[in-house]
């Protein structure tokens, strides 16, 4: 709590400074209370720029990502997509281990380590998730959430070209994610580079395929899809943070509980 107040004093203006070069929204007058409160709550001072990139991404999605994802769904079935999802999740476990350690969540760090070791071996390189079925379920985290645990506030909303919804805090996750993969630890080779590209590509397509129906639905039913995605992004980040706290409770695993 104390950290939060300290950070909000310096981190946000610094981050803002780097992004404020683009277009800004005009805040409504303070006297117009309902509107002013809504503006504050939206915390989206770069809305015009964000909306521009939203439109750009929407075009890229309509003409590239979505058709590819649709084609991928046509030639695969749900079990295949689940195994691909497991494989991608497994590659992310070492980064999660480091982030959970930084967050001071030893229990979750241990779970991430066990998951990576068990799923990479027994789970044949992460295609299967045996660790999940023996009491080590996945909890997601990333550097943005680590910063949140440290008390850095989410800051203004950002909609990034290609990457999509983010924020002044969560955007710092991008460079970290780029380096925090097991591929970085292996000696450089052409095969490894190719593997990295394929992994990124399949990750994007598999994830987009998972969201075909919900995204279609939002675009068909929301009055303002941009604002709807913004709200969903923020709620989902809050929920991830709560999940981390909830999952780090010290409870006995199933195998230990059954022995008593």
């Amino acid at each position, binding site marked *: 709590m104390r950290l939060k107040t300290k950070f909000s004093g310096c981190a946000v203006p610094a981050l803002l400074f780097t992004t404020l070069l683009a277009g800004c929204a005009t805040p*409504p007058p303070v006297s*117009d209370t*309902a*509107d002013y*409160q*809504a*503006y504050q*709550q*939206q915390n989206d001072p770069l809305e015009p720029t964000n909306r521009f990139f939203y439109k750009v991404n929407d075009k890229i999605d309509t003409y590239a990502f979505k058709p590819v994802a649709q084609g991928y769904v046509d030639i695969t*079935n*749900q079990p295949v*997509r*689940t195994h691909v999802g497991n494989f991608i999740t497994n590659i992310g476990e070492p980064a999660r281990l480091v982030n959970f350690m930084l967050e001071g969540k030893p229990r979750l760090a241990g779970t991430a380590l066990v998951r990576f070791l068990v799923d990479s071996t027994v789970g044949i390189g992460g295609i299967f998730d045996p660790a999940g079925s023996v009491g080590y379920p996945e909890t997601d985290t990333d550097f943005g959430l680590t910063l949140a645990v440290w008390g850095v506030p989410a800051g203004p909303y950002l909609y990034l070209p290609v990457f999509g919804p983010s924020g002044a805090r969560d955007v710092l996750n991008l460079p970290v994610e780029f380096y925090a993969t097991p591929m970085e630890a292996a000696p450089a080779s052409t095969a490894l580079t190719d593997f990295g590209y394929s992994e990124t590509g399949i990750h994007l397509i598999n994830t987009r395929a*998972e969201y075909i*129906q919900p995204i279609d*639905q939002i675009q*068909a*039913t*929301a*009055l*303002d899809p*941009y*604002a*709807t995605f*913004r*709200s*969903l992004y923020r*709620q*989902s980040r*809050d*929920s*991830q943070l*709560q*999940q981390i706290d909830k999952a780090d409770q010290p409870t006995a695993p199933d195998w230990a509980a059954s022995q008593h």
Partner: protein
Amino acid sequence: MHLRRFILSSFAAAPMLAFMAGAADAQMVPADAAKAFITSSGQQLVSIVNGSASDAQKADQLRQLVDNIVAVDQVGDYVLGRYINVATPDQHSQFLSLFHQLLSYNITYQIKAYQGITFTVNSAAPMGNDMVVDTTITSPGKAPADVGWAVDEVGGSPKIVDVIVAGTSLRITTRNDYASVITDNGGQVSALLSAMQAQINRIAGQ
């Protein structure tokens, strides 16, 4: 410092208190009653969706079911949020009528994608003023979805007041969606009403 924090936190708590006072007349539904309500609602929903009626008949049946099991007016007021004080009584009733229509359209749209669904009720736990019942919805060729249904007592019987998917609340999302339309149009509630009407016309024209 302490005083400042106290004052700040009491400011922060003020809207929450107002919200709680507004909801004070609503009683928390016991976990078992909420589960029973969601189980029976789910069965009705599944029998309509997987039934052999035509799409138009199904839409009618769904509309009736939604009016029976969802506290549409209460959800509507929640979604309108702070603008309920800005809207004229006329605009308010017009909003609720449009909200009823849009909700039915949205649910019907969603249901189309869920042909052949099965519905399992897991557990119930209190969250805020509501009892949230966790369910798993599976449909052929899709990954199972965990959906939470927030149940509250409205007018003496349990009603659905929110749907929670992956930690995101449908009523909060809709409130933010609608608020954005209003703020983008200089705080005019009438802009929201015409956007809702345009959406209904668009869907009806399809």
